[in-house]
């Protein structure tokens, strides 16, 4: 599980949760995602609810992948990044397709990372990777635990490297993550996922 090679070809979806410091962290992580990435990427970033989200506009020019704001019933495409819209929970439903809800706040947040992670774990199981980045509350800790229980891969930003470490510390208290890495390390791992797809492409020798 802790071996990157073992993950190759296995991940269909990547769910990312972050709050304070999240825009900066994603500015490092998302541009690093290579065009060949097969997985779909779902992101909850806590933002002030009344502001229209410009995240898709901000990240589109910086990313090799397509970047969209999630809409209800949208069919999930591979190699596409979906941001939860402000003031809606983002969930995954059968298909897979995107689902939204305005159910009550979770950890004072809508969208909530827990809501995304728990529903994605239900749909993708062991083919899901969950990533918790910098943030200032404990949303996401229960969700990451759900991903772990469903057999998915768990990644937490190394607390020392997080702009605000509360969220990653809360996640680590609940789940012994498969990988604890600084942003550059997480970016490298995601690149390694793509660089071997399709699997036949890669015949490189095992490192270390």
């Amino acid at each position: 599980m802790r071996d990157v090679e073992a993950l190759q070809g296995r991940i269909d979806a990547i769910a990312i949760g972050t709050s304070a410091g999240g825009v900066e962290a994603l500015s490092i992580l998302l541009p690093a995602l290579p065009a060949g990435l097969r997985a779909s990427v779902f992101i909850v970033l806590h933002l002030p609810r009344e502001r229209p989200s410009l995240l898709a506009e901000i990240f589109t020019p910086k990313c090799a992948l397509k970047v969209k704001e999630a809409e209800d019933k949208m069919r999930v495409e591979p190699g596409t990044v979906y941001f939860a819209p402000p003031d809606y929970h983002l969930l995954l439903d059968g298909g897979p397709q995107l689902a939204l809800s305005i159910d009550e706040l979770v950890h004072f947040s809508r969208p909530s990372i827990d809501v995304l992670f728990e529903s994605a774990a239900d749909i993708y199981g062991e083919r899901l990777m969950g990533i918790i980045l910098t943030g200032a509350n404990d949303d996401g800790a229960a969700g990451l635990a759900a991903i772990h229980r469903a057999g998915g891969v768990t990644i937490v930003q190394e607390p020392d490297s997080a702009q605000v470490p509360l969220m990653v510390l809360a996640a680590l208290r609940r789940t012994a993550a498969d990988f604890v890495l600084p942003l550059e390390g997480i970016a490298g791992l995601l690149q390694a996922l793509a660089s071997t797809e399709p699997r036949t492409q890669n015949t490189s020798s095992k490192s270390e």
Partner: protein
Amino acid sequence: MAAENIDIELRLLLDAIYLKYHYDFRGYAAASLKRRLTNAPGRFGCQTLSQLQDKVLHEPAAFPALLSLLTVPVSEMFRDPSYFRSLREKVVPLLRTYPSLKVWAAGCSTGEEVYSLAILLHEEGLLERTLIYATDINPQSLQKAAAGVYAVDRIAGFTENHRKSGGRTSLSDYYTAAYGRAVFDKSFRRRIVFSDHSLATDSVFAEVQLVSCRNVLIYFNGDLQNRAVGLFRDALCRKGFLGIGMKESLRFSPHAQAFVELVYEDRIFQKRNEP
């Protein structure tokens, strides 16, 4: 596996609710439904959804609480102010051309949106010739909606939304605050009919000029969404208006072709003129 069991138990529970109480949640979007029911067994002193099914079948008194959990009313006044601003600026001028108006607030929950529409129509001088049908499946929500009483701590947010929506006066003109509660003016009630109606099982009951149904369709699966949009199409007069939630879409429904986009960014559609 436990997860597999949950899917089976959920389906059986929804079947049981439908057969016993005729509330049809079988076409609801699974992800949100599952989330709402995750902690439900515990709240009813049960271990599993199967035990909860047993309880609601044999103890009808337990059902209203489960119904409220399944329909979780979450709403606020003038939610998405730009929607109401667009109604005011783009739809009201056309509504003025009708000698009398009927409006359907579908899935009105505890009434916040209904009073928002009523206040808007009042401010535009149209309420006196308007009848608003406010429908929901949850009788407890309808009771609250009819009472028009909201906690005072929510009013600041409502007021701000109302102002941003282009409100002509202060929201405080329309309610009386006392003992931590704001009671909305009873005169609005005279223009509103609150009624039990299910988008899943009932049919069209009137011809209307405007349907406002926001953040209800997100809880439905594709088939049920399609049924609901079909009801709206059939209820609307030619060139009538449909407003849905800001992140909802008609494009997954075959009935979409009956509508044109009037203000797409605020999800306001107009029914085509042709039959």
